[in-house]
């Protein structure tokens, strides 16, 4: 935190929705297809073509609004934002201006520095994306309009953030929400979640906001943090040098770690917004809102609280598991079959995540289903196998897809609980390690671990470790 200046940050996030078709036509939204292969008269902006609103986009916007505590506007309006650019086929972007679909929301964030804080969301509106310019080697450019007319939500925050940490906490939470809702794939690299940051500084205690600059091209959380911090330092230097901050758009260069001015205010656009006469007002009934509200999944913050409270997971486990919806759902499915949440979370965070990381797989592709994993945990619980053997069983399940019981049976991994058999092994171990026996009896009780290990080794892991421990104690 700077001693002389207060930092003020507001964020505009573009969330690309995962609807199957575009916002105003029936073309596919699939990423990475052949240039201009997913276009039609509407998204090409051909003369006479007219937009027709995709209802799913409205539903997704309502979901986002409800999940961020917004009020849903009963009658919102699409407006045209007029400007010329080759990637904008109609010469205007259909967006919302005066009456956006969602307004007056908020998110609660937690940062280490400040603890909890509530950040305002000014509005969420629906709009279409533009196409993409492709720059050719001969200095000419071509236009790919596959992305044109792809649905976006623009989420505009209040200028409530006071540090890059808060900005990142807000973004991560918003990201988690839209991915949880299943309305965005959250892919920052492909531009599915894009952020612009408005940054200004002002002397502590000053009410009026300082002149802001708008930072663009921030496609990772790390870059956003770097860009904001760079911008704060730059503005401090400008003011300290007796100059004034200019309102401008700056493009962040992640390689150089600096931002550069894109255009000054002398080129500020007058977008000549007006209601789009081709589209009707969007009417959202109270019934529709209720229906959507009922269909909302439990969000990460609610899960986090429930995991810590109701089912008693440690804060760390609850945080890791609730951060990702498929992971949380996997975990909950395991618990459903084996009701010991802490054991389940140990296994999910240990064996499952570890194996997935090794194989570079997503949880959705995990070959060990929640039910199969629960099968292992149940066999540890009823002492059929030890925790150690269980890891071997888990690996076999991963490879074969068979159940724990099938593998235990097939490989003869059933834990030995026959006192006589274990006693015989214990006797062998004691006989084979006279030095250690002497040391133990001399008071070095730590060696118990060594003896148990030897028994387990001799039994190929099948001896019940608890029984081995008891018998060893008795015999020694």
């Amino acid at each position, binding site marked *: 935190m700077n001693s002389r200046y207060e930092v003020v940050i507001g964020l505009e996030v573009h969330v690309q929705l995962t609807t199957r078709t575009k916002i105003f036509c029936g073309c596919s939204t699939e990423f990475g297809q052949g240039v201009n292969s997913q276009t039609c008269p509407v998204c090409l902006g051909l003369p006479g073509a007219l937009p027709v609103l995709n209802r799913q986009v409205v539903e997704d916007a309502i979901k986002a609004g409800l999940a961020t505590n917004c009020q849903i506007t009963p009658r919102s309006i699409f407006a045209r934002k007029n400007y010329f650019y080759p990637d904008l*086929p*109609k010469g205007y972007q259909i967006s919302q201006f005066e009456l956006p679909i969602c307004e007056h929301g908020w998110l609660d964030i937690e940062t280490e520095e400040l603890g909890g804080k509530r950040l305002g969301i000014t509005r969420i509106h629906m709009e279409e994306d533009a196409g993409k310019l492709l720059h050719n080697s001969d200095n000419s450019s071509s236009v790919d309009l596959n992305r044109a007319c792809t649905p976006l939500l623009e989420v505009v925050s209040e200028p409530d953030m006071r540090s890059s940490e808060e900005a990142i906490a807000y973004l991560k939470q918003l990201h988690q929400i839209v991915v949880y809702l299943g309305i965005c794939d959250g892919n920052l690299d492909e531009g599915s979640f894009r952020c612009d940051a408005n940054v200004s500084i002002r002397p502590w205690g000053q009410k009026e906001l300082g002149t802001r600059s708008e930072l663009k091209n921030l496609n990772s959380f790390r870059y956003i943090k770097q860009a904001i911090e760079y911008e704060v330092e730059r503005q401090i230097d400008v003011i300290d040098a007796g100059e004034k901050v200019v309102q401008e758009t700056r493009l962040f260069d992640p390689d150089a770690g600096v931002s550069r001015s894109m255009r000054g205010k002398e080129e500020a656009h007058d977008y000549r917004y007006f209601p789009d006469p081709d589209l009707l007002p969007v009417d959202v009934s109270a019934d529709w809102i209720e229906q959507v509200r009922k269909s909302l999944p439990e969000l990460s913050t609610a899960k986090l609280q429930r995991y810590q409270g109701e089912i008693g997971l440690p804060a760390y486990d609850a945080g890791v598991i609730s951060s990702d919806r498929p992971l949380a759902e996997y975990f909950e499915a395991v618990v459903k079959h084996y009701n010991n949440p802490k054991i389940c979370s140990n296994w999910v965070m240990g064996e499952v995540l570890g194996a997935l990381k090794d194989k570079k797989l997503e949880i959705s592709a995990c070959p060990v289903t929640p039910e199969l994993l629960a099968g292992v945990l149940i066999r540890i619980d009823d002492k059929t196998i030890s925790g150690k053997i269980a890891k071997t069983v888990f690996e076999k399940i991963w490879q074969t897809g068979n159940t724990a019981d099938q593998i235990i049976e097939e490989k003869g991994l059933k834990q030995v609980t026959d006192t006589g058999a274990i006693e015989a092994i214990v006797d062998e171990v004691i006989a084979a390690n006279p030095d250690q026996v002497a040391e133990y009896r001399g008071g070095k009780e730590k060696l118990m671990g060594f003896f148990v290990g030897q028994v387990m080794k001799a039994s190929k892991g099948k001896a019940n470790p608890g029984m081995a421990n008891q018998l060893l104690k008795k015999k020694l």
Partner: protein
Amino acid sequence: MKFHDLSIQEMRQKLLAGELTSIELTQQCLQRIKATDSQLNAFITVCEEEALAAAAVADQQLATGSAPLLTGIPIAVKDIFNTLDVRTTCGSKILDNYISPYDATAVAKLREQGAVIVGKLNMDEFAMGSSSENSAAGVVHNPWDLERVPGGSSGGSAAAVASGQVVATLGTDTGGSVRQPASHCGVVGLKPTYGRVSRYGVIAYASSLDQVGPVAGNVADCALMLGVVAGYDPADSTSVDCPVPDYLENLNAGVAGKKIGLPKEYFIDGLDPDIKKAVDAAIETYQQLGAEVVSVTLPHTDYSVACYYLIAMAEASSNLARYDGVRFGLRQDSGDGLIGMYQQTRSAGFGDEVKRRIMLGTYALSSGYYEAYYLKAQKVRTLIRQDFHDVFSQVDFLLTPVAPTPAFKIGEKVNDPLQMYLSDIFTIPTNLAGTCAMSLPCGFSKNELPIGLQLIGKPFAEAEILQAAYAFEQATDWNKRVPEL
């Protein structure tokens, strides 16, 4: 036999009876166009080959007996309608040789009913004009007096019907662009209620006002054409999902007992005496037919021209942004970069009137002026709409002149845009109100120019004004007169 004396229904009877083939009819039509169009310039494109191919298909259909309503009948459409495979210029150099990859919904509906599209009709560029003088394809001439304008912007659509080139056409009406040329050319033209006919594929001028309308030689043909193109279209969000009646069914219902309103703001002192005389006579005819006539008021009429031009130009400035030389149409680029290419393309591609309207519309939407112009105009529009709503609680429909004067001379108003804009004073309010209206012949001026009568109906009451128009047509013979060409 002079085929162009026939109505659509007479043509259909002869086609079904085998007295005439569609090929013959289409050939006669193409010959008539060839013989007259050097004088009229009503067509931008005549598609002989495509038309004859469609006529051959129609003849096969007629032979099998499963022939929908317009099978084999030659029809032409304003060059504002996108047509697959035949160029669509909208009267503009910027779309010179532009070929659309799709048919407008209205055109597709004509084709579904078996119509033979013979060509694309001349018009004011992007439908901006009241005289059909603003076309990259040249001025359209009035068949009644070649030195006069046919009206606009659907001047080609009206002139082609009046001269017997085709039996019926489609035009578009944003501020009177079907009714005023129909009036000037002595034919029947109808502007349906906003939302009655799909705008999909119709090149947009002012989206909240544009509406497709038929032009024909008599009321029944006009009713038939409306029935073909009307209806909800999921591709146009502003089209309305309400059932389409059979407009021919009760056409002879008459007007006995109907209450007709005469809005006093439309009967002003400056009205041309010939027009006043013709309209007064029409009022008398309606009284004789058993209708009651009352004086009504539409108090905000005076503001409608200003209101219309602000809204239309604002929407146009945005609708015409897509003509930027990037993807289709004209492109002029002398290598001065992107902005240079935009400027050169649009400077070369648009005519003066289009440029004037883009500039005025851009101004009306600009930050700092939006509230004073565009927003104020929208508020006035609401008042005008309310005027009509109020008046329709008192009467069944309204009767007014279509235009303040008969067709004026070519060039007469070119340098006085305001005078030109005022020629739409009686037609504009219905576009602002969104309701339906039509023009039908009701007399001739001293120098033998046709005069039109306007009937304005309640929203979606097209059937009602068609019935009233039909009653008048049966009682008079104005539509029987044809220009000598």
